[in-house]
């Protein structure tokens, strides 16, 4: 068989040392994506550093009233956490909209952020893919791309990021705490995933040996929700999804945050829309104008133009619901 070494470090420091010291190392969380990719031959790590039992399995309040989520907290536990449900409903809803119950019981917070695209060409080693094998080409651009990106893609790659959780975290201004050989740093979730450009093999800004240890949420600022459209009622990736945060005062938007999923190589924080929304009347006309402004830069492929319409509908619907203009879906 294809041999690999397996290590279960006792501490974050040991994990980082092992990860940094071995070029082919991968951190193993729940394994719900990595192990599949190993079976497919997409990933063939020489060393698996099993971080799933590190003491990173807590969800705790921060001093400023936010939440600190350990990297090994399981998706199910995070979705069910009372502080998440009450303060960050979009995050709980996004988690529950993802995968299946069995997968959520296994998948971790850190692993969810690092999962790879489900583009069919990426997962099939008998075919070219610039993300898997840089320079080999992108058959998706002319091939099966109904489920792929309309925003932020490049000539070299049209893959989407598959995470639901990350979309909610992006809208909620979460930050990722990384431990690496050169110490600790914090990266906003919105800056964590890269656009593909001409090196789509790099999904994120993570550096060799760096380990996600926690995700930090700022104090809840306003109510939020997550909406997802998919091809079946459960256990399907988003055709498009939206996480929205909104507060309204005196009929005007006080605070708005919007992020799209299923449409781009990363959770797509809609800053253009947010600029239109801020201070504008909280009505459907504004919401539609804001979302249209964001999606004006969309570049759909032959078979996925519907995603632009779908994302628009989801976002306007979500904002209307948060503004109390539409009944809860």
């Amino acid at each position, binding site marked *: 068989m294809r041999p690999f070494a397996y290590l279960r470090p006792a501490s974050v420091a040991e994990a980082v040392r092992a990860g940094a010291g071995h070029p082919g190392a991968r951190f193993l969380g729940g394994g719900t994506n990595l192990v599949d990719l190993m079976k497919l031959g997409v990933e063939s790590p020489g060393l698996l550093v099993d971080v799933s039992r590190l003491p990173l399995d807590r969800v705790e309040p921060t001093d400023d009233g936010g939440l600190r989520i350990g990297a090994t907290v399981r998706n199910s536990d995070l979705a069910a956490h009372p502080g998440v449900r009450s303060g960050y409903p979009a995050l709980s809803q996004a988690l529950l909209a993802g995968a299946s119950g069995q997968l959520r019981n296994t998948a971790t917070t850190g692993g969810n952020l690092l999962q790879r695209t489900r583009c*069919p060409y990426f997962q099939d080693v008998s075919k070219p893919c610039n993300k898997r094998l840089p320079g080999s080409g992108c058959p998706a651009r002319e091939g099966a791309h109904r489920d792929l990106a309309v925003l932020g893609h490049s000539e070299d790659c049209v893959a989407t990021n598959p995470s639901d959780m990350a979309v909610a975290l992006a809208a909620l201004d979460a930050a990722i705490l990384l431990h690496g050989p050169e110490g600790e740093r914090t990266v906003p979730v919105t800056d964590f995933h890269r656009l593909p450009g001409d090196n789509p093999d790099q999904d994120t800004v993570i550096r060799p040996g760096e380990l996600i240890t926690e995700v930090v949420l700022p104090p809840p600022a306003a109510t939020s929700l997550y909406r997802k*459209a998919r*091809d079946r009622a459960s256990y*399907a990736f988003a055709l498009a999804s939206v996480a929205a945060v909104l507060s309204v005062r005196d009929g005007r938007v006080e605070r708005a945050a919007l992020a799209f999923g299923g449409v781009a190589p990363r959770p797509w924080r809609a800053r253009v829309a947010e600029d239109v929304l801020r201070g504008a009347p909280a009505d459907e006309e504004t919401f539609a104008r804001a979302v249209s402004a964001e999606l004006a830069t969309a570049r759909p492929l032959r078979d996925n133009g519907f995603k632009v319409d779908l994302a628009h*509908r989801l976002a306007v619907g979500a904002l209307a619901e948060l503004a109390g203009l539409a009944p809860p879906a």
Partner: protein
Amino acid sequence: MSDTTRALGAPVLRREGRDKVTGTARYAAEHTTPGCLYGWVVPATVASGRVTAIRTADALAVPGVHTVLTQDNAPRLKEPDDPILAVLQDDRVPHRGWPVALVLAESLESARAGAEAVHVEYATTGHDVVLTADHPGLYTPEEANGGYPALRERGDAMRAFDAAPVRIDATYTLHGLHNHPMEPHASTARWADGHLTVHDSSQGSTAVRESLAKALGLDRDRITVISEHVGGGFGSKGTPRPQAVLAAMAARHTGRPVQLSLPRRYMAAVVGHRAPTLQRVRLGADRDGVLSSVSHEIATHTSRIKEFVEQAAVPARIMYASPHSRTEHRVVALDVPSPSWMRAPGEASGMYALESAMDELANALGLDPVELRLRNEPQTEPDSGRPFSSRGLTACLREGARRFGWYDRDPQPATREEGPWLLGTGVASATYPVLVSKAAATAQAAPDGSYRIGVNATDIGTGARTVLAQIAASVLDTPQENVTVDIGNSDLPPAPVAGGSSGTASWGSAVHKAATALVRRLDGHTGPIPPEGVTVTADTGEETAQESPYARHAFGAHFAEVAVDSLTGEVRVRRLLGVFAAGHILNSRTARSQFIGGMVMGLGMALTEGSTMDPAFGDFTESDLASYHVPSCADVPDIQAHWIDEDDPHLNPMGSKGIGEIGIVGTAAAIGNAVRHATGARLRELPLTPDKLLPYLP
């Protein structure tokens, strides 16, 4: 003992249910013995061409790899009865995914790593994998599947259509579909003392034994094929598949037991699919809705190595009275994987189009769609003129309409809202033929008063053992618990596959006959039963050779209520209700499961399932269960299956019709018709995913 255990029709619990839910039931890949080798197939990575070189040195260097079988060293086969079984025999690559090597290793992981290290070179020519309605290669074959003539004409359908005051002319598009049973196709083969034993995940081990005997050039007495438990097949295990041949070859070549279980990602290419169909339906009617012309034309694909023609226009020869009719199948051979059987082949796809067109006609007429169907009820089978042995369609429609609450329905489309949801209801008819094949069975009486039945039936999850015990018990006048049933082994009396909704009829007829003969034998028997028991054998060769003078079909009516999210276009089925007329129902519990299972599969066909041919590569894009969307539990609503008991003396001794497939037949059309009622959008391409609905939403 209560009467319920003797009576046919009783809701007897399935015999192996406990073994299955507790995990003690063993499947084909769970019969490994010490020293077993594991196989992993190397699939062709071109859609058309020839293998010019296979280099195996790197694979053989992988620790644990024992052997790599290729066209250069694999045992030679005699010409098999199915070309898909002629594996590792020559350099031809008829489609992407065709097996070009088999790696055998001490572990599954080593075999997989070895397979990645096999280097194959190809000479390729261009490939052609896309079915189009005007493909120049389309031709009309002699026959469609099932031996039906490819073309049938009565009267002048085109002239009658042109003259009809109300006309529907619509084209429906169905993409490929995959069976994807939960248990993958798997075989464990071993040779001992010149005898080959194969545990195979199959719908019929007698057929697998015959195929292996032919391919391996062996006397069938030297082969035993066992299919004790089978985790679903839906047609994809109805004919022998390459894993059985590969495992047998490999076991012979290596002298070791060999297990080969096909990975999910590989199944789409080698275990068949429901072929895509492009279907044009033309209906002509008078203003009262009485049909004067029915035309149904199919274009479909097959592979380069066999002609397989989905018989989707055949139901139109059965369903509705019309003086003029034309039904035609055309097919084109492409560089695609070979299509094969999938639940209700022909009926499921053809009835989607025909029953959608009937709904379009009802709307054009302003006539209730149930009433339209009642007005076109034929007196005899339209195409053959034969009398029906029984025909329960109108009873199913009326009973279903009553139970569903159909008659309160406002026919106006797009007028019912509930929050963001648009609501609608739809109806469609269903039909499936009564089929039966020759089978043999033994019935044995033991000295302790118990009985034992032997027949090589297969339980693919239907409850075959249970219903056969009930059939035997009803003849022997004994509680069913007193009857042991042996099935799933080709050393038992030969029997046909669990397929064509004919298993229970075929096996049950033989069991009934053997049990009846045993009763007669025991009546003449004096003294105690000897220790070895009293055994009789019967077969139904004579009965099944006679063609029935009757047109024999099961019928059904499907009703669906859907909710369409007006924001996203997501369709949710709220209610499905089916009423079926299928002779006597022999076990109400397992029958209901089969009806409901078929309806769930039809729900998938309507809303979620589809296999996309990749024009660049020649394979199907959806290669795992994360991308090939079978319905999840959250998709499956309140489903009800009911039936109308028919007393039909022209069927078999049990008076039963098959029930394994009819549940899928009308479901997709009923859901599509309900979506039209909810939204006003008539979509003629499945599955009904949000992208298709979005352009029609407010």
